[in-house]
């Protein structure tokens, strides 16, 4: 392609100065960018305000697309359901029958739990979700794993609240706008979640690796007790997440723990619910440095 003559300033002093000023401005812009980048490394939430406003402004479009996306997905599910419908149906019937029996057993256990808790004078109030909304989008071109939620401060969403789907934990609220908020997904490499193995008290940390897997780091090192297909649930430590919510399934064992796949893939979820912080006092305690004293 031929070069454009617009950049040739020739002998015109004015054109030369214009060109020169352009370079200077671009250079200053790069410097400003570098400074802002440095600031946002140390104060990550400083620019949350403008970002929240921008998200809110884009939310009518993102909401519409999210609705269309989940609609098309369920259409595909119903089409693919016809594939080998007969054998699938028989298998599902058998599973449902087993599940019904288990459900009755679980109901009996729940009753017993209520009775025992009554004896001990423990009573936990019913936990209602703060808001139910769609995941409307994500930072899909960035290395970080953030999702955008279609509910914000107007719906009562606050920073730090856990986000879950019907399947399990999705992540935690990081920034809030008025009608939208940003969620730190479990797969982000800055996300750490205290977990325990379902069924026993093997406690660990589930850290995002940034490549769709979680790293399960056992707290008590020794002989690795984990096996493939072990399920990990939240332990409730740290105070953010209520205990007993499904997090991940072990896929591969490592020296100090395991690699696990998340149970609740945000891309496959329709609606998610935002819940209250489980124990706000504990969460504050976990944030306070060791040197500082807790309490008044």
């Amino acid at each position, binding site marked *: 392609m031929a070069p454009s003559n617009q950049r040739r300033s020739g002998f015109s002093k004015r054109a030369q100065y214009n060109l020169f000023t352009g370079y200077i401005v671009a250079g200053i812009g790069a410097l400003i960018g570098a400074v802002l980048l440095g600031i946002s490394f140390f104060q990550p939430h400083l620019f949350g305000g403008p970002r929240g406003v921008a998200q809110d402004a884009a939310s009518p479009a993102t909401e519409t697309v999210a609705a269309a996306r989940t609609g098309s997905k369920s259409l595909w599910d119903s089409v693919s359901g016809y594939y080998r419908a007969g054998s699938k149906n028989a298998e599902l019937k058998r599973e449902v029958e087993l599940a019904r029996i288990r459900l009755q057993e679980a109901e009996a256990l729940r009753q017993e739990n209520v009775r025992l808790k009554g004896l001990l004078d423990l009573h936990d109030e019913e936990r209602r979700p703060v808001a139910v909304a769609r995941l409307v989008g994500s*930072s899909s071109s960035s290395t970080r794993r953030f999702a955008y939620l279609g509910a914000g401060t107007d719906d009562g969403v606050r920073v730090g609240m856990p986000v879950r789907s019907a399947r399990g934990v999705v992540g935690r609220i990081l920034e809030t706008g008025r009608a939208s908020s940003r969620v730190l997904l479990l797969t982000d490499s800055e996300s750490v979640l205290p977990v325990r193995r379902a069924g026993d008290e093997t406690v660990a940390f589930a850290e995002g690796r940034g490549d769709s897997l979680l790293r399960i780091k056992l707290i008590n090192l020794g002989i690795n007790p984990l096996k493939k297909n072990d399920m990990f649930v939240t332990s409730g430590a740290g105070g953010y997440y209520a205990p007993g919510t499904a997090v991940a399934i072990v896929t591969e064992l490592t020296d100090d723990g395991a690699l696990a796949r998340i149970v609740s893939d945000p891309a496959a979820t329709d609606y998610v619910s935002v819940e209250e912080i489980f124990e706000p006092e504990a969460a504050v305690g976990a944030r306070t440095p060791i040197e500082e004293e807790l309490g008044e």
Partner: protein
Amino acid sequence: MERIDPRARSDAYGSRLNRSHSVVVANVVPWISIMIGSLLPIFFVAAALPVVPPFGFLMLLAWRLMRPGLLPVWAGIPLGIFDDLFNGQPFGFAILTWSLAMLAIEALEMRLPWRAFWQDWLTAGVLGFTYLLTGWLLSGASPNFHSLIAIVPQVVITILIFPIMSRIVARLDLWRLWRWKRV
């Protein structure tokens, strides 16, 4: 005349009789298309890996490489601020990288004024790869080996999608210079 050849009085940009280019459309289309490119990735829900190419950045490169002189050198600043609102990186990342990319292309153009498309593609590929690698380094999280592996598919898609982006820009350019205005 029209009976012999219906397109006798028109060229690639429409009829030449009592029609003129719209100044507003001609100036606004590149900026708007780059901003739409910045917005596009938030519509995808990608929980596992970063898979969607940085459309805004690619759009900027395509406009800059195909229509030199249309975007000013400092265009990376306002467009970068807009991209930073949506890209998920720490604020300031796009302002810095987009400005540097504009300056880099400027320097390259001084040395290679005559270029073929494959050279533009090579330039965009190298810049896109550098952009994603910088994004991995300066993401605000501590960069680790696994997340480096995770950006490989995105790098490949980014490089392969550039010809399509430049076709889109070519079509937008035709539309930009269409004679909309009745004189």
